[in-house]
């Protein structure tokens, strides 16, 4: 077996971009900070030097305008990649995305396409506060004509980023800021991961958990602890929100009879409601108990670490929900909580891992 190539998600995205820019000179980057020393959390590091200012274009702070510019260039056959350091900034550009990016292929019956990638980073922690921490994936996934992906590991991120760049359609890629820190084995060179379906990341027969983006890791923490008390969890990482394919989830629920969806965004009209609805539409009788969902508390993100404590679903909450569904006895619940606590160490909830340096 060859050596592992360990890198984090930020590096994997960088490598994917580099790979595509090398292979296809129509690919270019644009955004605020793409060529600056911070290089979008390292994800564009070195690319400005390597490809020059014409392909790594520092943009004025004008999100609606430059999204339109990218769409226009894409319609002319270029392959732009836009980056927003926070998904929140894209709120200024939704008219362009929902109308011109999403509908051009349809309106022209495929004569014009918009091969655009929009990378958007979801902020979390460190007191970012209400306008720098939203997780708006379900809003994008509402709109036919857009593709929406949320890769969670280096391997997936690199492969899906390459697939996104090569896709003739507009692909919105949401990257959770804490996922950027996640390390893992990453294949070398060119490869793609299809922009469809879910990714199974843990196998178990008692409960099906569907989680997106960073929530996958909270779910895995919970699952590891639950396993200690004999509860085996199937975890499906919802990497592609549109086009949405829930086949593997439905199959899993047919086996487990229990479904929990853990959303990185707000719950009303979120991932949870969509996945649960599809499952009950397709196989209502498989459910042995009411399905559940977790997500952000139904209020804006508070800045203070104390207020944010219970705002995000954490391994504890996930384990609790599973315990409720399976009616686990108190001693097992306690055991699970202890396990999770041990695994996490004493790190506060607003910091992803010990390597983290604020403020971003």
């Amino acid at each position, binding site marked *: 077996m060859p050596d592992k190539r360990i890198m984090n998600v930020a590096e994997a995205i960088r490598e994917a971009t580099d790979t595509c820019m090398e292979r296809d000179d129509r690919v*270019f980057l644009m955004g605020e900070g793409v060529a600056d020393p911070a290089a979008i959390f390292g994800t564009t590091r070195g690319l400005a030097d390597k490809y020059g200012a*014409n392909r790594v274009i520092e*943009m*004025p702070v*004008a999100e*609606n*305008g*430059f*999204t*339109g*510019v*990218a*769409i*226009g*260039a*894409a*319609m*002319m*056959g*270029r392959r732009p990649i836009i980056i927003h350091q926070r998904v929140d900034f894209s709120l200024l550009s939704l*008219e*362009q995305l929902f*109308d*011109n990016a999403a509908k*051009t*292929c*349809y*309106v*022209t*019956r*495929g*004569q*014009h*396409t918009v091969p655009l990638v929009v990378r958007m980073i979801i902020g979390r922690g460190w007191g970012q506060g209400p306008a720098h921490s939203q997780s708006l994936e379900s809003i994008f996934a509402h709109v*036919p*004509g857009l*593709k929406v992906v949320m890769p969670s590991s280096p391997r997936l991120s690199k492969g899906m980023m390459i697939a996104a760049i090569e896709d*003739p*359609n507009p692909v919105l890629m949401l990257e959770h800021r804490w996922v950027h820190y996640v390390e893992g084995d990453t294949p070398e060179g060119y490869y793609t991961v299809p922009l469809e379906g879910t990714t199974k990341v843990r196998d178990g027969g008692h409960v099906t958990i569907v989680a997106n983006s960073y929530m996958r890791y909270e779910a895995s923490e919970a699952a590891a602890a639950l396993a200690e008390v004999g509860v085996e969890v199937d975890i499906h990482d919802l990497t592609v929100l549109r*086009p949405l394919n829930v086949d593997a989830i439905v199959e899993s629920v047919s086996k487990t009879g229990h479904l929990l969806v853990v959303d990185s965004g707000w719950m009303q009209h979120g991932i949870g409601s969509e996945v649960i609805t599809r499952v009950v539409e397709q196989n209502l009788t498989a459910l042995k108990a009411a399905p559940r969902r977790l997500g952000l508390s139904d209020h804006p993100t508070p800045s203070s670490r104390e207020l944010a404590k219970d705002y995000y679903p954490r391994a504890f909450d996930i384990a609790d929900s599973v315990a409720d569904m399976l009616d686990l006895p108190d001693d097992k619940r306690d055991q699970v909580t202890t396990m999770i606590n041990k695994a996490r160490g004493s790190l506060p909830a607003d910091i992803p891992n010990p390597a983290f340096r604020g403020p971003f």
Partner: protein
Amino acid sequence: MHATFPASELKAMFQSMLRIRLIEEAIADKYPADKPENQKMRCPVHLSIGQEAVPVGICEELRNDDQIGLTHRCHAPYLAKGGDLRAMIAEMYGKETGCCGGRGGSMHLYDDAAGVLTSLPIVGSVIPIAVGAALAMQQVGSDAVSVSFFGDAASEEGVFHESMNFAALKKLPTIFAIENNHYSVYTSLSDRQPDRPLEKMAEAYGMPAFHGDGNDVAGVRIAAREAIERARTGGGPTLMVFDTYRWREHCGPNYDNHIGYRSEGEFQHWKEKCPVETMRRLLKQEHGFGDDDEAVMVTVINSEIEDAFVYAENSPLPDAETAGDLVYA
């Protein structure tokens, strides 16, 4: 007057304007019906009658590979740039043979062969799209240019300013062409913008600007030539503002001076400047263009129009089964 253009060119501009006028008058004639359910063009139409000189003057200077981006009021520039008439009328009829196969309606005209990149009904939305097309041209090293045509109200949308800033910064080969017809639907310019020349907006970016009579097709064309030449040779963008007037209602085939948002007098004042009539007079008075010459021209145009409507009427509606196709490429 306009010594720059030989008679043949003047006639060509007249022909183009007259053709657009007659086409839009034909749309206006055929649009209404006794009952809504009998109506055949069942989509909004925004006519450019009275505003023909700007698109014609500019498009006469454009090459096929130059791209134009349009708004809801797109018929005239689409036609001036060489957009397919049949495909346009068929689109209004919602037919399979329309340029969008009926999916877009009158506000989404495009024609790749003619360099009509797109038309977009959200005010201001097309402006950065045209700038993006110019960026693509610059990136591939082409000397083609892009032009966005839009109204005075579109200049109130922030995205126009974002687009000007970026185009000026990167010296992109693009032209912002404002057809200032002084109204946004029923609201006059003076109720929406402070009283100062619109072209001042270009100075905000150190961008060259031009302000001219939107009824003088030759003047438009001369100014456009300069701006296009500058864009082609790396001199960057230009803002062009042309004063003009929409004769009929904002959306639909009728006149609406009686409903109170503007006066019959104002309309008559502008109607006297009719770009088609002005050019007709010039041709007849100074270039030996006779009534019979015009009659021949009209006959040709009318038969083209007749053909397009017959084509549209006879074309099949799209198959309802295909309504969900090609959401993705």
